Every structure is written in C-alpha cells, then in structure tokens.
C-alpha cells in the first residue's frame, strides 16, 4: 500500500515537473501574419493570467505547416477551420478540438460565400478568374467548387483559379480587380461589403472554427485546464476583444466535424492560372 502511495506521489510530482510552461500556438493563416496574432493576443494573455502558461506564436505559411507542426510536436495548439481539422485528423489522430468560436449570429457555425465587386461582370464566355484561400481551407477549393457548381452553374475546372493563401487575400485580390470571384468565409467577406464587394452565393452552415490541441504534447490535465478556462471567460471580458474571440466559445468535439464528407484527393494543391 505504501509503495502505491509513493508511486502516486512521484507521478503527481512528475506531472508537475513536466508541466509545460509554454504553449506553441499556430493561428490560422487567414489574414496578414501579424494581424492574425493580434486577434489572439487578448485570449492568450488571459490564459497566461489564469494558468501561468506563456504562449509562443508559431508563424506558419499554410495548413501543411500546421500538420507538420502537430506531427513533429512543435505545435501544441492551433486555430483551425473544419476542413483542415478533418485533414489533420486524417494524418494525425492526436489532434483534438476543445472549443469552437461563436460567430456573429451567436451560433458556432459559419458559411462559405462567393464574393465579387459590384461593378465587375461575370463574363461566362471566357475563363473566369477565381481567388481561392488555401487548398486545405474549407472555403477554399472545396466549398468554392460546390458553390460555383450549385449556385451559379459554373464548373471550376474550366475556370482560372489561384490560391492567395488567406480569405483576406482572396477578397483583396478580387477588390483589386485581379480576380472576378473570391471564395471566403462569410464573416470576413461581410467586412468587405463596405468596399463595394457583394456576396453572390452562400453555403449551408458549416461547423465552426475551433481551437485544436495536440494530445501528444499536452497532458489531459493541461487540456482540461485550458478548455475549462476558455469556456468560463466572462462575457464582459471577451466582449472587449476583437474578431473571432470576441463572441465567446462553446465546447467542441470531433463528432461535429465528421459529418463533412471531403474527397481530399480531388482538391488540387496548386492553382491553374498561367
């Protein structure tokens, strides 16, 4: 009995000894790198204040970097959309969503939309230039392809498309006139309506963006602590924040994302523009 007690004490002490002081967090490459970090700064400062863990932002170019980071243990936590999460879990089963972020409508789902500048006209007589986010972005090739086909009757494979690496970039390049249509997340696209951009098609609700943790680099105790802390942030605090973090979070699980059927092999990893 004494031996068991001793082992228990050692295990508790060990768990404290190996408890992480830093969390390596990869924000989604939705916008400009710095701005992406800025949106998550208040949330990470809150975690530091409550749990004493310092967040190190890991700069990533694309979703492929996130997957690599999870696999080699250099990323402990990431902000991911549904498609990247499914893709990640397909390659790395230790990725686990813990909270999903509420959208402007107070729900945890969002839509993908097609956007164009109001004064631009879609000329179907020649290939249409389409701005995409990233190959593994939900609103990238995957949903844009579906929306073009279902809402506008346009076959993407016969058009000219290019990956701009983020939702904002896709919208900005279209605003600049380099593309006629952009595929992006609805909340981001709506911000561009003040710039003469209009939403021409929108998807059905999709499971929301979530914080995904690496089961292999973080202990269950740490994951529970993070999840509990995030779910209990008072409204008057997150209400002061900006962007995706400013509307609060709900608990999230893998099950919610399993409804999406994605044929990853059909997604091209490069654009087809000359």
């Amino acid at each position, binding site marked *: 009995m004494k031996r068991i007690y001793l082992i228990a004490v050692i295990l508790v002490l060990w768990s404290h000894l190996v408890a992480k002081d830093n969390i390596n967090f990869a924000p989604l490459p939705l916008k400009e790198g710095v701005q992406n*970090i800025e949106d998550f*700064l208040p949330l990470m400062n809150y975690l530091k204040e409550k749990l004493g863990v310092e967040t190190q932002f890991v700069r990533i170019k694309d979703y492929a970097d996130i997957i690599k980071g999870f696999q080699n243990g250099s990323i402990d936590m990431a902000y991911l959309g549904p498609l990247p999460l499914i893709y990640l879990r397909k390659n790395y089963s230790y990725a686990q969503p813990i909270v999903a972020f509420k959208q402007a409508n107070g729900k945890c789902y969002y839509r993908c939309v097609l956007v164009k500048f109001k004064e631009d006209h879609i000329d179907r007589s020649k290939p249409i230039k389409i701005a995409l986010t990233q190959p593994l972005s939900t609103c990238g090739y995957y949903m844009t392809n579906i929306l073009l086909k279902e809402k506008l009757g346009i076959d993407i494979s016969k058009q000219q498309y290019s990956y701009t690496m983020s939702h904002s970039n896709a919208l*900005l390049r279209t*605003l600049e006139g380099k593309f006629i249509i952009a595929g992006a997340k609805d909340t981001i696209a709506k911000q561009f309506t*003040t710039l003469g951009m209009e939403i021409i098609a929108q998807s059905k609700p999709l499971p929301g963006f979530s914080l995904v943790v690496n089961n292999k680099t973080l202990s269950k105790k740490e994951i529970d602590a993070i999840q509990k802390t995030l779910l209990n942030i008072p409204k008057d605090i997150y209400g002061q*924040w900006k962007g995706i973090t400013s509307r609060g979070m709900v608990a999230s699980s893998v099950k919610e994302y399993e409804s999406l059927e994605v044929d990853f092999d059909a997604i091209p990893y490069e654009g087809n523009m000359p």
Partner: protein
Amino acid sequence: MKKYIIASAILLLILAYFISNFLSHAKERDIQLLTNSSMEMINTAYKSIFNTHKISAQKDIYRLLKNRPLMKLLQKFKYANDEYKSIIRGKIYRLLYEEYEQMKKFNIRQFQFHTHDGKSLLRFHNPPLNGDSLMDIRESIRVANTLNKRMSGLEGGRVYPGFRYVFPINYDDEHLGSVEFSMAFESIEKELAAVLPNLGYQLNLSREISYDKVFPWHRNYFISSMISDKYCIENPKISSVTKKLQKSPIVYKLQLYIKNNIDTIGEQTEKGFNFTLPLTMNDSGYMIQFIAIKNTKNMQAAYLVAYSRFDQLIVINQKYTTFHILLYATLLLIFLLMTIVIKQVHTLSLQKENLQYLLNLQEQIVILSSGETLTYANQKFFGFFGFPNLKSFIYKYQCICEKFIHDDRFFHLGKIKDGESWLSAIELLPQVKRVVAMLGTDAKIHSFSVSINIYKNDIYIISFTDISETMTEQIKLEKKILRDNLTNSYNREYFEQNIDNIITRYTQWNSHLAIGMLDIDLFKDVNDNYGHDVGDIVLIELVSLIKKSSREDDILIRWGGEEFILIVKIYSKDGLIAASEHLRQVIEKHSFKRVEHITCSIGYSLYKEGEDIVHTIKRADEALYMAKNSGRNRVVIT
C-alpha cells in the same frame, strides 16, 4: 602643536572636499558634453529622417492631387449614398493599391483617406475597417478638415500611434477630405539604426496616445514600459523592434538598470525633457538617452530611448580617478610637510623661548641683528632704552647703531665709511676699541663693550656689556699715562704703545704715514722773557691751536720741551705740503696771549715700508734741522 596639526588636517579636508567637488563637476561637465553631442546627433538624425519622409509625403500628396480620376471619385463620394460610397471606396482601392505597395517599400505603414467630416474613408492598411470618426481623437485630422491645414508629427490613433503626415484635399475649390501617410516606429528605428548604429532604439509611448486611444481590442498591442507607468511600448509579440531588444543581453541589463532606478527616471520623464543616463557595467561604458517627442498638439507624447555604448565614459572615469588619486596624494604630502613644518616651527619656537629666557637672564644688552635690521632684543635692552617691545623700537630706529653717541673715545657711526656696515667696521677694531657709548633711560651715558658672535647665517648675537665704571677708570688712567700733563696731548708713552697699530692703520691701501717734527722757534726767549709760566701757557695754546687746525686722524705727541711730533695720514706729498704749510701759517698768524706771535719750524719725513720708525723720526728731525737752518718758520719735507 596638536591643534595646528588638527587645524591643518581640517583645512586640507575642506580643500579636498572643494577640489573633489570641482573635479566631480568637471567630470560631469565632460560627460555632459559628450552625451549632449550624442543626443544632438540622434535628435538631428531623427528629425532628418522624419523630415525626409515629410518631403516624400509632400511629393505623394502632390501626385495624388494631380490624379483626376481619384479627385472625381472623392468628389462623388462626398455626395453619394451609403451603397454607392462602398463602391467608390472599392474603386479608390483598386485605383491606388499599387501605389500603396510602392509606399510600403518606403516604410509607409498606413495610407488612409478621410472624409471631409473627419471619418475614415479608406484605410489601405486595413480596408474593411472604415467609417469610424477620427475627428475627436486625431488632432491632425481635425486641423486638416476644419482649418484646411496640413499637419505632421507623432500621433495616437485607433490602431497604432504613428508618425503622421496629414494633408487636406481640395479640388475645384472644394474641400473633399484629407489623406494621411503614417510611418511606424519600426521604420524610423530601421533608418536610425542605419544612420547611427547603436545597441538599440525603443519608442516609449505615453498611455494617452497609445493604450488609452486605440480600440479596446487593440490594447494588447501594448505592454507597460520600464521607464514609467505612464508609458507603454509595443508588445514584443507584434513588434520586431521590441522583440529584437528583448533578445539583446546588454539591452536587457540596461533595462534592468532602468527598472531599478524607476523613481529617478520617472521624475525625469514627468518633466518631458531630454536626458541621458551614463553608466558603467562590467568595465564597459553605456548610455541610455531619452529623447522627448511631442505630438501634433505639441504635448509630450513619447520618449525615444537609445541604448548605446559609451566607451569614453571609461576613459573619463579613469582620468578623473587619476586626478582624485593625485589630489589625495598631494594633499597627504602637503599634510605631511605641514606637520613637519609645524613640528619644526614648534621646535624653533621652543628654542626661541629658551634662548629668550636665557638672554633675558643676561646682565648685558643682547640683540640679534644682521647689522642693519634688528630681529631680537632682550629685556635689558628694553629696560635701558625705555621701549616696551621691539616693534616700538623699530618703529623709531632702524638700527641700534643710531643710538651710539658721537664721541671720539668710542666707536660711532662717524667712524665708518659710506656704505659700510657698523658691524663690519667695529669687527675690524681690536676688542679694546669695540666700545660704544649710549644714553640710557637714567639720563646717563653708558659705555658698552661690544662683542659679536655669529648666530646663524647673517644673523649675529651682539652683546653690549656695560663697562661705564671700568671705562671711567680707564680714561682717567689713560689720561694719566698716555697724555702730557701740561698740554693734554699724547706723550711718548702713547707713541711707544701705539705706533705699530698706527703704522698698520695709516699705511693701508694708498695712504702713507708721515712723521712731522714741530719745534717752536726761539722758545727759549719766551721762557727767558716771560717766564716759564707763560711758556707753559703758550704750549697749551699751541696744542689747542694745532688740534683745531689738524684733521681728525692727525696725532699730536709732545716729544719733549717745545718739540712735538705730528703723525699724519697722507695720500700725496702735495697734500702734506699744503696741510703743513697751512698749519705753519695758522700758528704764525695766531695771536698768543702775552707773547703775541710765535712761529714754528716743521720737518717732515715719509715712513718707508718696513723702516724702523726711529729712522723715520730721525729723518724728520733732520728735516726740522734744515728748516731751522734755513731761517725758521718754514716746513721742510724729506
């Protein structure tokens, strides 16, 4: 003595304090000169960078104002409805986004148009964020859109504070709004580092223009500054400048220094002036310079903090440490010397006191003198002359010799040559002749035997022994022995006793000694005709007459009867002839009592060096004989 040594120590300590203080001030001044120069350089570099961008911004605005499509869009925007405003906004973005890309290459971070009523029309750095009113929070936008004036300077904003250049836009005499070009500190820092490479630059922004002014969700862009809780710096998570500085171990140590001196630095920053903190760490010199930056309202808005090496500080410190060591070593040396001097003075003082005590015990008058100046006198001296102290005596007399009475029996100032010291003169005399006469407070003339001994260097101990009683007796005896009873002239005894000295004295330098034999012509007739009494009176009168007509040095000796010898000091034969002829004539012309006129014959002979004086007298006698034989009443010199 102890109190003098303590006083010296205190004096030197006070001196050390003042000199040390002076050196400290001089050191501070040296450091100040260098830091001021460095501060001036950073200030100039900062201003020139800011102004260069101002010129660049002026070129940009000039180009924009010439862009007719843009002006037309802005004109339409002013009057469009909200939906059309969105389209125009997009069109403006489409028109100028390439230009913005170019601006970014020149470190412009924010390029923004404002409406005529001060709202954000289009932020090229964040296009979806627009429509918010900036009029109340941005002075530059208020001035550009209400006073139609351009403004530039550091200014807070809704997202970041920046170095702003805001220009009003007027087209076809219509105010359409304004445009701004803003630079982030990162750009300024990059250019500053290129112009003046330092350990690092950091911009500390006042909370008023940063944390308090940005959108609440942007407050995490800032963290507290180390210099004061009223200032912030950009969060290292979003600022490469802050991150770079955090990685520098030296800057980290310098920032720790700031943290540890936060009270002092906080007071300085309150004043809003430029200042520098020079410091040494691990044998290296550093300086932290705080350059105050005003905002567009000309209010203190930020501190540009420059961390740099300051190797001259070590040199200055070493220099002034050496000065301090030299100072203390010199003062210590002076103290030791002063101690020695004080001890010596004390010893001398004791010696002087002992000497004074000793001298005061003496019966004689004792003085210390160089001959000209009197440095000391004993109590006997003051008692004799009736002076309370030496000062009062010196006030009236320069030398004791002034008190010597002019009496030929004694030594006096009349017996010394011009320019000769009385001490030198009296020293040449035999001891028996070193006698002076002085008048005492008892109204009597006292005679003193003078003895001279060297005290030290040119100072002599001169003692005056009162020999008045002895002298009186001596005078009487001398009169009795050496003088003729009848005529009071010297007699043969005198001659015998003194002739050797007289020869020595009278044959010095270019003088010669002459012996004159004088005889009254036909004196036998006087005795025969008038009696011996009258003869004696004639002799007395003749001696008196000769003394009056002779020079002081001339010595008259009654040789026998009516025959006298004159010992004279001459410088030439002509002089002797003239003097003796004059004497002869004086006697001839003199009217003697009872006998009326008598004459004298005189024979002179010159003393030859080494000659027996008897021979000289004989030759004088022969000359007298010749004068007698030649008819009397004449002078013959052989």
